[in-house]
């Protein structure tokens, strides 16, 4: 085990507490940089989606994980970013300009959503953000002069400083990676300064935060605005990656996927956003694989256990029919959320910390180390 001796206030502020972090993240960054020359184009495409989802995950973590304001409206923020890019592109606005414009516009709209949300907490806030998402979806479908309604919009190939950057090129991947890394660094900076601490204070006790001089309303709006702006930036990349956007891509299901990203990754650390993004992007091909191959495998097993050819064929057809049921994916997502909330509330990153501690303390690790402690009585009166 490593013991850190702090000799300077700087030691508490540093992003990397010790040299081990520098090595680990350095190696990780190196691997990510050579990835385009090693991985298949399919995996590269998945990796780009991981970057975009992780960026949204970080945005959602700021709002939900650190400020404690739940949101099921992030698909709408993503849509606003994406449509802003697609619309401005029609007027030959250069990429850096519409990229910034999308973030700023989404941030302003996020702040506007934040104001009415000030008086809402918990489930009511969730309902308010859902209705915001539905309103945006409806506007995208109806405002045909700008959004082309349900026909959707084509997004032209990204052009950076006059050079075309196709959506499956390494350059586009590096761009997404850069946005993700900058978002993470900016968020870490925020979390180690007064604003980030005010966010956490609001999450844990609004009364105490207020009595310490935190303007709760202002900071909630700030949190909404920052979270929305980051999601807007991600929306631009999302639009370019898909090269075609339409309202049915930004439904409630997408918002739920973002919630899954942070729930499964872990809501207490930025690592969670990245782990959750990897999970959500990789589960889709996995489900497709199950859907395509499971019926055959099950029928094969049935045949091996002596079922006749006709019965096996019948089983295969039934399983295939079940696998292609509408809404099965949503049900699977639901089950995953429930299982994680019940058995691993700290998410994948929490699990990773436990594994790490197990090896650090080996053979002294105790199973109850991470057991949740009794929470003391908390006053509910002043809420």
């Amino acid at each position: 085990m490593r013991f850190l001796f702090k000799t300077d206030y700087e030691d508490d502020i540093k992003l990397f507490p010790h040299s081990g972090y520098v090595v680990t993240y350095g190696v990780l960054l190196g691997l990510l940089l050579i990835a385009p020359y090693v991985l298949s184009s399919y995996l590269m495409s998945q990796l780009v989606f991981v970057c975009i989802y992780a960026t949204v995950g970080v945005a959602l973590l700021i709002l939900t994980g650190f400020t404690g304001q739940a949101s099921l409206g992030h698909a709408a923020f993503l849509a606003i970013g994406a449509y802003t890019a697609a619309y401005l592109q029609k007027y030959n606005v250069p990429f850096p300009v519409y990229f910034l414009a999308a973030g700023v516009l989404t941030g302003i709209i996020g702040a506007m959503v934040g104001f009415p949300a000030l008086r809402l907490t918990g489930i009511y806030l969730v309902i308010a953000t859902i209705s915001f998402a539905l309103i945006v979806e409806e506007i995208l479908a109806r405002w045909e002069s700008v959004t082309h309604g349900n026909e959707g919009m084509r997004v032209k190939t990204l052009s950076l400083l006059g050079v075309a950057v196709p959506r499956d090129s390494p350059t586009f991947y590096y761009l997404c990676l850069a946005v993700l890394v900058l978002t993470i660094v900016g968020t870490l900076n925020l979390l180690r300064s007064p604003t980030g601490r005010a966010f956490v204070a609001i999450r844990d006790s609004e009364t105490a935060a207020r009595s310490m001089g935190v303007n709760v309303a202002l900071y909630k709006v700030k949190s909404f605005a920052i979270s929305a702006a980051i999601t807007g930036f991600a929306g631009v990349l999302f639009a370019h990656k898909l090269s075609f956007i339409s309202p049915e891509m930004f439904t409630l299901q997408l918002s739920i996927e973002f919630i899954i990203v942070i729930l499964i990754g872990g809501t207490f650390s930025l690592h969670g956003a990245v782990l959750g993004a990897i999970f959500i992007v990789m589960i889709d091909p996995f489900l497709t694989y199950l859907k395509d191959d499971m019926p055959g495998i099950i029928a094969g097993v049935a045949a091996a256990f002596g079922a006749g050819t006709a019965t096996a064929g019948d089983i295969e057809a039934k399983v295939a029919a079940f696998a292609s049921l509408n809404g099965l994916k949503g049900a699977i997502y639901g089950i995953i959320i429930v299982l994680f909330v019940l058995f691993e509330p700290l998410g994948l990153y929490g699990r990773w910390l436990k594994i790490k501690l197990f090896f650090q303390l080996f053979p002294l690790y105790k199973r109850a180390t991470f057991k949740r402690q009794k929470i003391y009585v908390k006053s509910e009166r002043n809420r």
Partner: protein
Amino acid sequence: MSYFRAENLSLHFGGLKAVDAVSFAVEKGEILSIIGPNGAGKSSIFNLISRIYRPTSGRIFFEDQDITEQPPYDIAKLGIARTFQNIELFENATVLSNLLVGRHRHSTTQLWQEILFLPSVRANEKVHRRRVEQVIEFLDLEPYRDKLISGLPYGVRKVIELARALCSEPKLILLDEPSSGLNVEETDDMSFWIRDMKSELGVTVLMVEHDMSLVNRVSDRVIALNYGRVLAMGSPAEVQQHPDVVAAYLGA
């Protein structure tokens, strides 16, 4: 003019008069205790001062400034810090970051500077941390500085709340039952700290307390309340002898 003054302060919930035309003044550098039976309106007065409740009538002055209409978050900016009866700490944060929230009123940096973590932000952070370490040393919290609140015992949390209030470098501190839930030794420590706060840090203390031994040891003056009204005001001994106070506690 007195340092802190409440004039005819009232708080009515419908027909219930939680606080009824209470007037008192706190002089700079004194320790004033408010005592009274349960439901006498002691904590309500604190909640009025820190603007969690809006007074039905009456005015509050601090350093000759009318603060009755100030928004709650400005009260802390003026230099009035408080603790809570039922501990309101930030459960899922470390002791250190809890105390750093106490420094919030001294933060001057802008959002964009913080996102970039400019040198000015870093310099400010170091100042905050130095002040926090001083408070940690003052209240002997060194063993807990990197621990999460959710794993700490009640007595320690009580001290951390006091520490968080002190981190804001208050001029006036409101202590809501600082000794509730503490054992005899911890109460002793608390009484030393409260006196040290006055003598070493020059903080004026307004305190709600049930433990009469603590009140006697630290208070310069005592106010006794019952049913939202002031029964008696004066030195600890005087107030305890006052017939109305005896009647309120023991029954007439």
